[in-house]
């Protein structure tokens, strides 16, 4: 029986520009179309994720930066 390869997941990180560091223990995701469990920082694509507008006490959402992709200030990310 043929086995499927393991699912590939995306890491989603919250980074504080003011503090120059990753915000550990927090997910920046408010919701996702699929492949995401509330509170998790991993998403199984394809999925559209929506950013939390605020992450107290660190500040407000500014944008998404995906490795090797253009920066976007849209709160939704496919």
């Amino acid at each position, binding site marked *: 029986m043929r086995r499927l390869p393991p699912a590939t997941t995306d890491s989603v990180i919250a980074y504080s520009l003011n503090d120059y560091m990753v915000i550990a223990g927090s997910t920046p995701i408010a919701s996702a179309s699929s492949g995401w469990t509330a509170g998790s920082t991993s998403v199984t*694509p394809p999925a559209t994720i929506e950013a939390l507008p605020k992450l107290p006490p660190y500040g407000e959402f500014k944008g998404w*930066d995906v490795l090797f992709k253009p920066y976007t200030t849209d709160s939704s990310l496919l």
Partner: protein
Amino acid sequence: MKTTINRLLTTQFHKAALAAALLLLAGAELCRASSNVTVTAQNLANSQVMYTLEINPVASSGCGEQSVTAPSEISTVSKTGVAATYGFQFWDVNAQLHTNPTVKFQPACGAANSAVAVYWPLGGCAGCPLRRRTASSLTR
């Protein structure tokens, strides 16, 4: 005025690989206040500073505009000889986001300045959280 990081270029390989990021200083008026611009390369996966590329006194540069350039990829070599590579993601310069590898900015005189080149591990490191892609929510 132009400053390169000669010290780094003459040390071990793994440090030399990181030293491709340069701090170029454009001199202007003299600034009486003493302050530094600290340029570091940081691993986004764990917020650890991989290397401090330069700690440059702003006063000696005349508080002029500064330019920093990050290489698209850097590598480190562990004590066991395993090479890990990292891809440039963005600059965090004094809490301002810059997505281009080369950034020009005006440092604040009389205050600490920080220019952090943020990288994501692409492979080779033990325990790397390798993923198909990494999305970072940037907050300030």
